[in-house]
């Protein structure tokens, strides 16, 4: 063991506290080597160990009849979808790398989550991307930077996803000043597999050979996991490691090779090298297998000859896997690697002593009990500052904005405007299975081999979360479930990405805790298991934290292709209903933001009993073939929702109009048209069936309103309390569809 002097400075540089260092000493019974210190530092970073968030994450409901692999057990959870088929999905963040280098940061984010999925034995089927940027309007340096970030991130996702051939079929984007300098890039991937194909990331079978396959190791993203667990500062931008560059072509080969390998039956365990690369994959496989692993760094394929052991261990080069092969079956495995022209090497063996042992030739540079390293990371219960509820909005001091022009302002707000500029850069059709492409409430994907239809959506309104983290998190789950219901689907599983600021700040930690509680409450109410997720803390820059952003992605199943529903009105004469109440909550609304520049008040309250009733009611109607279109009501309220339903599905479809009457509401017009109360759905039904639908709804006791009809003329008219507001839907559509491209043209 080479001796090294581990100074307090060195310990601090590795982001370890004196207490954590004491724990290392007691695990090892001696002073660590520099390499060992590096290994502990990445394994015990928040990114790998969840040391600040794990106690909170335990609150998630993770079980269910259909759960085949639970959250936290493996790289991603697995859910049964029937007939021997299963889906495996997860969401991951790549926020900090994208802040530094948007194109490569986003690209490698896509690569990373795809690897997580095929490591499980699943064939990646589709992606969603949930993005947050600072404001992009105007000529300020900040706005230019944010536009560059948006363009770069979009191009990076497009580059990686399109090349590897996994369609990006949905996502969301919001813009808010709180993300200035710290954009969020969360990518979701879903894969499909047969039950018997579930692969494990465990080093099973003492004596089994351990193979390294994929790209050669370089100095990329050295200690990136530790980097992700720190705040971004100007200095951290300066002393950053070599930026990771994604190679979607290599990953495509790796993906095909791994699926072929797993099908061959020669594999005892498999693990991708993600954050903390070789270090994390060796110690996690050993820990899961209850075994040890011994590898020799001299055998690792390298891009630069002069890499030190420390660098090899901590490198985050992309597109690499660790494969544990059944002894004696090396030959067919090598043949597969060679067919796909991938660099590979036999770098070690599974042992029985529970150690993660790393040699450089004859010298042992790391020798750490694997289980202690992987599972005994320190856990912290951080201090949470009690939250003070914001003052409720005082309508009397709030002037009523001009309704007519405000709808246009809302439709032009980049968070509400069409994201077509973004998603047409994604190949959302490759794999020939996208039934509902981006643009509707949820994307629908045809699982051809299984003859099943999946729907997926991602949601989070961070304004709500910043005003009331728990209620905001509940709203995210409610919206996702409602989006799925509007598409004809029942929710089957949820994965979350918890994006927050520094957990050492009590208010940030409170937000994390409250968000977990809110998501849990929603999952229990809807009976959706949490199948896994990702935590990204330290999202701060310049002066403040980001708005808390607990993004959820929810997957649903549609029981019959006839029940696939989209948000666009289909035919003039169809009758339009509102399922739910008219609502009256303006707190945290985009109306307030757009007309007053304010993020204030209490966000909409969530009543899960009501949410469930509404969703079930809609699904019952869809299954009875009574629904032509359904669209959930969210940012911008009723007026925006109805406008969007008038917009067309494709460029040659006609633009329709709608004639709506809200009747006597007793509300101010701005409240009636733009409030964002939850649990509301706008749907349309053929005229001949409208009375029947009305009868069903009356009998059900669910709140509803028969609002009006879809019109041939491209005009939207909304009457409320005797006053009629009118717009040309061509104007509305033009405003909505050109807002983002116009902003992005400025350069």
């Amino acid at each position, binding site marked *: 063991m080479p001796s090294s002097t581990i100074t307090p400075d060195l310990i601090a540089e590795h982001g370890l506290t004196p207490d954590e260092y004491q724990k290392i000493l007691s695990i090892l019974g001696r002073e660590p080597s520099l390499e060992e210190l590096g290994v502990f530092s990445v394994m015990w970073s928040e990114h790998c160990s969840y040391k600040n968030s794990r106690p909170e994450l335990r609150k998630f409901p993770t079980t269910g009849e259909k759960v085949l692999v639970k959250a936290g057990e493996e790289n991603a959870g697995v859910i049964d979808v029937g007939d021997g088929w299963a889906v495996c999905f997860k969401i991951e963040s790549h926020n900090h790398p994208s802040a530094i280098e948007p194109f490569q940061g986003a690209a490698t984010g896509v690569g990373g989550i795809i690897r997580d999925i095929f490591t499980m034995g699943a064939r990646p089927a589709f992606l969603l991307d949930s993005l947050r940027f600072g404001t992009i309007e105007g000529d300020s340096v900040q706005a230019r930077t944010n536009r560059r970030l948006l363009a770069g991130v979009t191009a990076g996702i497009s580059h990686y996803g*399109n090349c590897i*051939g996994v369609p990006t079929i949905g996502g969301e984007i919001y813009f808010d000043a709180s993300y200035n300098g710290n954009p969020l890039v969360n990518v979701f991937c879903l894969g499909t597999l047969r039950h018997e194909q579930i692969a494990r990331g465990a080093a099973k079978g003492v004596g089994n050979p351990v193979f390294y396959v994929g790209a050669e190791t370089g100095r990329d993203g050295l200690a990136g996991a530790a980097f992700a667990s720190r705040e971004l500062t100007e200095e951290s931008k300066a002393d950053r490691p070599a930026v990771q560059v994604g190679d979607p*072509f290599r990953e495509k080969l790796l993906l095909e090779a791994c699926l072929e390998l797993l099908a061959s039956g020669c594999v005892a365990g498999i693990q991708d090298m993600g954050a903390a690369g070789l270090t994390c994959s060796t110690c996690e496989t050993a820990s899961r297998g209850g075994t040890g692993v011994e590898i020799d760094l001299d055998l690792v394929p390298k891009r630069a000859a002069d890499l030190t052991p420390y660098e090899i261990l901590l490198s985050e080069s992309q597109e690499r896997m660790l494969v544990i092969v059944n002894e004696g079956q090396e030959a067919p495995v090598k043949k597969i690697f060679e067919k796909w022209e991938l660099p590979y090497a036999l770098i070690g063996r599974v042992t029985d002593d529970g150690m993660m042992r790393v040699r450089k030739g004859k010298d042992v540079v790391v020798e750490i009990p694997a289980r202690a390293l992987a599972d005994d990371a320190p856990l912290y219960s951080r201090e949470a500052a009690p939250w003070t509820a914001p003052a409720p909005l005082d309508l009397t001091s709030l002037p009523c904005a001009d309704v007519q022009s405000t709808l246009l302002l809302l439709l032009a707000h980049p968070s509400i405007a069409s994201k077509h500029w973004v998603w047409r850069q994604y190949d959302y059709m*490759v794999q*020939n299975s996208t039934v509902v492409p981006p643009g509707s409430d949820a994307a629908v994907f045809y699982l051809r081999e299984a003859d099943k239809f999946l729907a997926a959506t991602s949601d989070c309104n961070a304004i709500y979360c910043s005003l009331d983290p728990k209620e905001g998190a509940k709203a995210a789950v409610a919206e996702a479930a409602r989006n799925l219901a509007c598409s004809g689907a029942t929710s089957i599983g949820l994965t979350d990405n918890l994006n927050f600021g520094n957990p050492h700040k009590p208010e940030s930690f409170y937000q994390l805790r409250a968000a977990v509680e809110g998501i849990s409450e929603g999952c229990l109410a809807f009976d959706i298991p949490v199948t896994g997720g990702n935590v990204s803390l330290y999202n701060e820059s310049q002066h403040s934290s980001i708005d808390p952003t607990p993004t959820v992605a929810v997957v649903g199943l549609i029981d019959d292709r006839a029940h696939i529903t989209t948000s666009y009105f289909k035919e003039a004469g169809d009758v339009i209903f509102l399922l739910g109440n008219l609502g009256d909550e303006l707190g945290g609304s985009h109306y307030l933001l757009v007309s007053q520049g304010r993020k204030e008040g209490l966000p909409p309250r969530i009543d899960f009993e009501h949410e469930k009733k509404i969703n079930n009611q809609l699904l019952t109607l869809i299954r009875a073939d009574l629904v032509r279109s359904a669209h959930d009501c969210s940012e911008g309220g009723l007026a925006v929702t109805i406008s969007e339903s008038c917009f067309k599905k494709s460029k040659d479809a006609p633009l329709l109009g709608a004639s709506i009457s809200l009747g006597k509401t007793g509300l101010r017009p701005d409240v009636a048209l733009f409030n964002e109360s939850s649990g509301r759905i706008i749907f349309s039904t053929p005229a001949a069936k409208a009375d029947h639908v009305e009868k069903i709804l009356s009998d059900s006791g669910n709140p509803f309103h028969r609002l009006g009809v879809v019109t041939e003329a491209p005009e939207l008219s909304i009457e409320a309390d005797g006053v009629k507001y009118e717009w040309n839907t061509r104007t509305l559509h033009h405003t909505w569809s050109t807002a983002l491209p116009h902003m992005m043209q400025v350069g």
Partner: protein
Amino acid sequence: MRVAVLQFPGSNCDNDCLVALRSFPDVTAELVWHQETSAEGFDVIILPGGFSYGDYLRCGAIARFSPIMKAVQQAADQGKLILGICNGFQILCEAGFLPGTLIRNRKLLFRCESVILRVEENATPFTNKCTPGQLLRLPIAHGEGCYTADEKTLKELEEHHQILFRYCDDQGELTTAANPNGSMENIAGICNRQRNIIGLMPHPERACEALLGGIDGRFIFQSMLDWKVKSEE
């Protein structure tokens, strides 16, 4: 009809082609790995879309050196049908089977959407089920689909009726707005002078199923099938 769908490292529409082809009765379709040196026994060879070799260097530049390309040459010489879709079109141009080349979209961004094509020629094995001037709606998904050739080549293409598809608006007009990538003369697909090799940027295999929004791609595959049956009579 026996169809070989070539699989280069980085192809990603290979399976989509298989699925589309298998929806036709009397078609058998198989993947053929790029390291193979023979395509004996196949009537049709398809070079599918994707990113062969990551599209590194230039789209299609590396794939054209794959061993299977010798077999493509042989099949072409025997008058068999060769269809290059998207990346396959790029490979055929790089390999010199078709004139000209495909460069970066004029507006520089990748574009995925559905476009309208005007069928310019129907006296070919690939378009005989279409009427001249017929409009087809097909998806595109590419970043480098701007067809470019020198003037002499363009003239020859016209003279020999080798331009099979052009981008147009829903009235059949060849407008700039309807051209998604800035290709010369709104060209979307061409064939060789012998009319047995075709390349096009749009994806017919993505438009063979009503569930996915359109079936106009079936005209192209059905044309090939009919041609095959007729040529055997």
